[in-house]
């Protein structure tokens, strides 16, 4: 399977570019492109300090299920199944954080659950929107759809999906459960108590997740492959840009805005679509 091998490479490189572009936006040099790989290798060499052994087990499950999600997705299977697998993976991470029984990761886990509540409706609406156009939940069918690119029929859904991407990537307005640079009231929230190899697993899982989510963005442009890849990369840059022009929101604002976006853009789009048909 190409995905299983290539995704971490692509994901890691993308993260390297992310750090580079962010740095340039902040008038800094930034680290080398391969820095994320160096980080992960270094993490693997570090002593693994755990509060409870079972937290590592949950993180391992998190990694497995993220890979599984991506695998299902790129194998062209059912989109709904993909969403369930993704949620399950996230739940494992939350459980791991709960297990660590530190107040920081505990509150981080609670916030992560709130964030999941915030983005889940929009993700489901995205699947429904795609079904309404292509009449199939199978990723394979959606990717092979030959009409106008989905984005023209689902502009609201597309924008709403971009909004959830900000949450999923834990970027600036929504980095409340675990921020990238541990400069937060919760230290690093969800991932505070993970160290060494476990933390490396979380990093790798994020790379898989990144590639998978950008793959989903590609689905909106499936009938025009080159445009699709270009837009996916553009979306990635956009996410970095938004990261750099926003302060972190509070959880109340995060959930309220995410639901408002889901209701207006996502639901509105579906409503119009069904009226047109």
């Amino acid at each position, binding site marked *: 399977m190409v995905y299983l091998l290539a995704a971490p490479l692509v994901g890691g490189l993308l993260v390297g570019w992310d750090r580079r572009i*962010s740095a340039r*936006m*902040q*008038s*800094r040099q930034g680290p080398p492109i391969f820095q994320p790989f160096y980080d992960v290798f270094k993490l693997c060499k570090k002593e693994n300090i755990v509060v409870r052994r079972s937290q590592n087990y949950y993180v391992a499950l998190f990694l497995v299920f993220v890979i599984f999600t991506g695998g299902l997705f790129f194998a062209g299977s059912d989109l709904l199944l993909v969403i369930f697998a993704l949620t399950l993976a996230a739940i494992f991470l939350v459980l791991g954080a709960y297990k660590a029984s530190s*107040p*920081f990761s*505990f*509150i981080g886990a*609670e916030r992560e659950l709130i964030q999941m509540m915030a983005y889940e409706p929009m993700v489901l609406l995205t699947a429904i929107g795609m079904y309404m156009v292509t009449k199939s939940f199978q990723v394979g069918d959606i990717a092979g759809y030959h009409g106008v690119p989905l984005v023209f029929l689902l502009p609201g859904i597309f924008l709403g999906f971009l909004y959830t991407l900000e949450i999923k990537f834990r970027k*600036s*307005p929504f*980095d*409340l459960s675990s*921020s990238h*640079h*541990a*400069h*937060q*009231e*919760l*230290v690093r929230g969800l991932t505070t108590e993970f160290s060494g190899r476990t933390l490396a697993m979380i990093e790798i899982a994020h790379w898989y997740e990144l590639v998978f989510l950008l793959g989903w963005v590609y689905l909106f442009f499936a009938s025009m492959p080159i445009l699709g890849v270009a837009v996916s990369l553009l979306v990635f840059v956009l996410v970095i840009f938004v*990261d*750099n*022009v*926003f*302060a*972190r*929101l*509070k*959880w109340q*604002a995060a959930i309220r805005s995410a639901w408002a976006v889901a209701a207006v853009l996502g639901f509105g789009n579906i409503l119009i679509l069904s009226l047109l048909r």
Partner: protein
Amino acid sequence: MARTIIPFGPQHPVLPEPVHLDLVVEDEKVVEARPSIGFIHRGLEKLAEKKDYVEFVYVAERICGICSFIHGQSYCQAIETIMNVTVPPRALYLRTVWGELSRIHSHLLWLGLLADAMGFESLFMHSWRVRERVLNIIEATTGGRVIFGSCKIGGVRRDIDPAMITHIQSEMKTIEKEMREITTVFMNDRSVKSRLCGVGVLTKQEAYELGCVGPMLRASGVAQDMRKLGYAAYKDIPVEPITRTEGDSYARCAVRSEELFQSVDIIRQALERIPDGEIAVKVTGNPNGETIMRTEQPRGEVAYCVKATGSKNLQRFRVRTPTFANLPAMLKVLQGCDLADVPVLVLTIDPCISCTER
């Protein structure tokens, strides 16, 4: 959710310096904040008994790494008052310039830290980028980046030559322009405002009663600024305190942002009107007497209580730093805030814990 105690510090990534807060939270609402300070008590007040009063300037400067110059200046002023030393006017103007430069660098540092506390990394980096220009001026004129070491009893140790004055004036233009770009974001961006407006409100009455000083007090509507005492060159360059009435974190941010431009203005005036002449007078003998010297630091009023008995060591050297006066207000605003607001609130008093504990 039941009550949880979140340990906040002494080593916490948001905190620039070690202070410990036990936050009793109930569902992300802070019910109570229990402080403990004293992790970095260095006994500098006690050191006054060991060092002679002249070399103690260097110790006084090191009370704080950010407002160091004004610490040195206040100490020198206190001794000069006791010994009836008349400082040459050029030295007074130079002190004013350096004092205001340190105010700009301190406020920019604070703006950066505030941005970082609310998760706005790029704004943080850009604030510190501009601060770097100020630090370069400071390094070129005094030799140190944050510890100036240029104040001494009876005057200053270094002069600024005319070429340098022209250079500072042109740099000030650039700095002002770049600061404008940054403060616009702080003042207008909705995501920043959503984190600052209405957070940690202190009414005028409360702020006064709790003994707040500096921007904290001015943000609540009390026009108090120790520069109005007219020390150094402030007797020739009048300073109007910048006040706000809202009393929330946004107002504190606004006061500090506006003070940046006020300081630029003061520096410009001081450099234009700087008189020629000596930069220091020779001071002989030992101080004998007592005074309380108050000056305005970036963080607010600092009070130096100096008592000397005619020997070369001071009998008592006591510093009441602005953060010490602002701590009660911080504990007050922390009660009932959101957990996510804690870093912002801790930062709005501009905590300088090393100063506080000396």
